[in-house]
């Protein structure tokens, strides 16, 4: 019978239309911005810098080694190393970034900077509502805006943050007996937290 194909197609659309009142998976519209779909834990948007403790200046993990700047494919990170060293949250004198800018109009969220950072200092954030009214300077995120605390990182990515904390604690524990041994004259073991300038 001619028109059988069209009729079977219309049966499909009718089933979907009526079904959308009863089955949840046929009604897929999310009424943004009143409701937002939940983001999975792995979701990544733009990077941010982590600081331990409550002090964004002293607790900043970044030591301005510039590896992320070099590896970033679109080169959106701009770092100027400081001239002096400041003590970090463990009391050790470290370089710190005097200027750390990320241009989020250039950043493509590839998270290569996270992969190559040896100090677990830069991680991926989840904030996606970042629209601004001007183009160039307004989309430039400076160190102040980029620095967020470790507790914030725990709140957005609990499992990953727990792993990172465990890794850092392990590295710190390895260094402590080594530094005790170095006091006795043995060679210190190189570990992640050591401030080698690259």
């Amino acid at each position, binding site marked *: 019978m001619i028109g059988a194909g069209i009729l079977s197609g219309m049966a499909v659309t009718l089933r979907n239309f009526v079904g959308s009142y009863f089955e949840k998976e046929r009604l897929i519209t999310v009424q943004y911005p009143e409701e937002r779909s939940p983001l999975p834990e792995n979701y990544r948007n733009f990077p941010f810098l982590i600081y331990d403790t409550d002090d964004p200046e002293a607790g900043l993990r970044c030591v301005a080694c510039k590896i992320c700047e070099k590896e970033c494919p679109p080169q959106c990170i*701009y770092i100027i190393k400081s001239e002096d060293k400041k003590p970090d949250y463990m009391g050790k004198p470290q370089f710190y970034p005097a200027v750390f800018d990320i241009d989020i109009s250039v950043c493509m969220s590839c998270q290569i900077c996270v992969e190559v950072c040896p100090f677990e200092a830069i991680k991926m954030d989840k904030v996606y509502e970042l629209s601004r009214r001007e183009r160039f300077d307004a989309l430039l995120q400076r160190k102040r805006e980029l620095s967020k605390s470790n507790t914030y990182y725990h709140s957005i990515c609990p499992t990953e943050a727990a792993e990172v904390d465990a890794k850092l604690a392990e590295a710190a524990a390895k260094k402590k007996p080594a530094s005790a041994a170095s006091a006795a004259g043995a060679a210190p073991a190189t570990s992640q937290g050591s401030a080698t300038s690259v």
Partner: protein
Amino acid sequence: MTLESLEQIKGRAQAAVPGAKIDIIPNTGPSQQSSLLIDNEHALAVARFLRIDPALQLDFCSNVTGVDWLERTLKKKVKVKKVVDGEEREVDETTEEKIPGYLEAVYHLYSMTHKHGLVVIRMRTADRADDARLPSLTPIWRSAEFQEREIFDLYGIRFDGHPDLRRILMWDEFQDYPMRKDYREPDDYEYEPTPHDAVLARAREHYAPRPHLDGAENITPQQ
């Protein structure tokens, strides 16, 4: 049907096309994909042989690409007889061999009838001049039609015998050849918030220099 080795293909091609000069370019890496270098006058005849020969039947030209080789110097260690301390001995000397630059077109061929494997052929121009010419293999494999146009557009190699040689990705009035190694981008400068390396050098040329303030936040546009 398994593919013959490159030496066998070279032998049979040279027998089928008299006068053709074919060399095997070895590939030093782990992929072991060596290629055949074909001279330009007999390229069309060799390509036709590769396509219609019953054992090969390489009818699928998968990829046509251009490569720009700048002038290179190869250091080689040669044993040279020299007089040292009054007696003649063989000494290792490093000689430098200058290889002039050229442009290259590389074709990756497969066979759909026999479902066998990769044969890579190359053609080289004499030099990197602006009017470098190579024979077009579009009459043999039509898949080269758009790809040779792209090589002409981006590298500047003219293909003789191509049915419709004009720019494909850039606009028609564009002058330069963007994929060449010595291509200089035009100075269409736009404000860049996070400049570094070459871009920072260009930013400094366009903006008022402030040598004591080196951060990006201190660069202001010079109107």
